[in-house]
């Protein structure tokens, strides 16, 4: 199964390289994405663990993350077809660059699949570094100044972060001795490994992969990178790349004593929620705003994992909820930006009057990402709060609640500014099916997750949270 999963994005790369027009490349990407998605679904439904040699192994946790990657990739590839057609017509991008977009995107997805399927932690490291390298060209795809600046910061800061993570791997291998550095072997041997090195390793993993994840204070690259990339790439960067970085931290978690890890996670988590809460009020760029929201949500996940207990499954659920809502928002934002011709928030208003569907999508997305009912994120954020209180972290939970409220207010302010109000009469373009369809799917998914969390999902998440629980 795993070779097929790797083959799908690889096929996308080859098709993109062989294609003569960007549309063939786009088709190739969609086909590859469909293949990946079907493979992920099939694997997800089967109870067996897929393995390929000693290095690659797809267990339940991996399947969960893989489904998110595949689903998002599929929706984004469909969206990209419509989005880039309009960009091409508008003259924002050339056909050669568009082909390269598909090449890089498929390579990017390939590396993410390897991250998710990795059994050996050092291989996972190589794959995470590869994701950085393959996504950097996507950020400066348009070739403008800001894209360069963002890509430079991204490449430099994430590479330093990855280097720190590698230091963590060195510490881990020092602690492990003869034990192979796989996520199945390490937890079993955890008791007899040198605790000092394990702790150091976890710290460096957290800082290193946390940089990639966008945890504060290592988040400085994220707003730039996610706002300068084209919309489908931003969606994938925010929606799945952050998850992959999270997975890398989760894989080593079972070997680390909880008493050491939890305070660290709580610290980084609350910091990552606080920094966006402070900065969100002064944002002028729509995609930058969404990028800060990603930082915040990753902070929420990490906070939940730090709380442990009942907050564990909620944190994993929030991974899904965030991906759904964030991708929705980025896709809608990309569409709106093309329509209004600007990324600045104050130039975008009156959406509901002009195009009701987009207005609903945007407002729904904002409600979804801030965790208000009836959308799914409400349950995950609430679950984390409950877990925090139950675990005795009362002060932190209170701060968490306050920060969430601040963020909710800020986002609602921006959302209502953009969605309601007087519209400026402009040339009405036809409804762009390929752009809107994925967004609608995502909105419905978020709604579904909010109204009715499937029992099977919750049981799975509970199982998974014991898998990643600290020792």
């Amino acid at each position: 199964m795993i070779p097929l999963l790797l083959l799908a994005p690889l096929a996308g790369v080859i098709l993109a390289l062989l294609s003569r027009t960007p549309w063939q490349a786009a088709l190739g990407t969609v086909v590859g994405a469909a293949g990946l998605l079907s493979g992920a679904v099939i694997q997800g439904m089967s109870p067996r663990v897929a393995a390929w040699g000693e290095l690659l192994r797809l267990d339940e946790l991996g399947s969960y993350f893989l489904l998110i990657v595949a689903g998002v990739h599929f929706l984004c590839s469909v969206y990209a077809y419509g989005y880039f057609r309009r960009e091409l017509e508008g003259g924002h991008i050339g056909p050669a660059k568009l082909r390269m977009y598909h090449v890089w995107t498929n390579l990017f997805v390939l590396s993410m699949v390897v991250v998710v399927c990795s059994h050996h932690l050092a291989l996972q490291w190589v794959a995470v570094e590869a994701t950085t390298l393959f996504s950097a060209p996507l950020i400066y795809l348009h070739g403008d100044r800001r894209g360069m600046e963002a890509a430079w910061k991204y490449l430099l800061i994430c590479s330093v972060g990855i280097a720190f993570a590698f230091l963590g791997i060195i510490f881990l291998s020092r602690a492990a001795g003869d034990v192979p550095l796989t996520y199945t072997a390490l937890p079993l041997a955890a008791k007899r490994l040198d605790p000092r090195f394990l702790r150091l390793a976890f710290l460096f993993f957290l800082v290193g992969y946390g940089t990639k994840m966008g945890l504060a204070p290592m988040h400085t690259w994220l707003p730039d990178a996610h706002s300068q990339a084209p919309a489908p790439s931003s969606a994938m960067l925010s929606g799945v790349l952050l998850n992959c970085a999270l997975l890398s931290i989760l894989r080593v978690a079972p070997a680390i004593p909880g008493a050491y890890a939890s305070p660290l996670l709580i610290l980084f988590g609350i910091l990552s929620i606080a920094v966006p809460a402070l900065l969100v009020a002064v944002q002028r760029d729509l995609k930058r705003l969404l990028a800060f929201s990603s930082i915040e949500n990753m902070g929420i996940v990490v906070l939940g994992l730090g709380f442990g207990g009942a907050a564990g499954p909620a944190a994993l659920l929030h991974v899904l909820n965030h991906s759904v809502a964030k991708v929705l928002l980025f896709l809608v934002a990309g569409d709106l930006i093309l329509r209004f011709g600007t990324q600045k928030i104050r130039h975008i208003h009156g959406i509901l009057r002009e195009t009701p569907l987009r207005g609903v999508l945007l407002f729904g997305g904002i409600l979804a990402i801030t965790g208000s009912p009836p959308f799914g994120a409400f349950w995950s954020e609430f679950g984390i709060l409950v877990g925090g209180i139950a675990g005795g972290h009362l002060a932190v939970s209170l701060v968490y609640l306050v920060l969430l409220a601040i963020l909710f207010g800020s986002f609602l302010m921006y959302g209502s500014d953009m969605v309601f109000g007087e519209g400026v009469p402009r040339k009405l373009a036809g409804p762009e099916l390929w752009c809107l369809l994925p967004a609608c799917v995502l909105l419905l998914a978020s709604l579904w997750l909010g109204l009715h969390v499937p029992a099977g999902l919750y049981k799975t998440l509970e199982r998974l949270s014991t898998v990643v629980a600290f020792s």
Partner: protein
Amino acid sequence: MNTITILLLLLGLHTAVTERIRPAIHSLAAQGILLGLLPILAAPGPAWRAAGLGLATVAVKSVAIPLILTRAVNRLEIGQESESLLSTKTVILLTGALTLAAFVACARFGLSGQDRLGAAAGLTLLFSGLLMMTTRVKAVSQVIGFVVLENGIFLFGAASGSAFTLPIELGIFLDLFVAVFLMGILMLKIQRTFTHMDVRKIHTLKD
């Protein structure tokens, strides 16, 4: 082994302190050669594997990366000076302080003898690289700092005696190479759009 470690330490310090770009690149090349000797001396396992690793290290660190950097320096027409936000004396002092901190940290951590020397030297290179990346003005110097950082990690790993399987190690080298390659390309593109390489002036994106 000790001698190589000390030489690496001195070369790393030289890279961090020197005021011109070309000597820094030459230092990198020298570091690469020394690092290539390390697997041959230190790694367990069959000799051909160690030799292969050594060759890969030298190929990437002494040949490929300095070539990319030199090409960038030549094409970009940036000056010979590697400007820094801090004065040279401050950099010397800071680097010295970081070296001592690294040694103390390693001693605190219970390593001893040759291990301690290698680990401390690795940490020193890591910190020096980080210092370069944060305080240097020209983008090329930042990339050089990144390579020094990676060298430090490599040295640290070699001192710890970690043994990965061959494909993973090759993957690591590939990552390093591609990273620097991409940085080189990005530098060229930045040059064309910005017409300068001063990262102090790159701050159009901010809150």
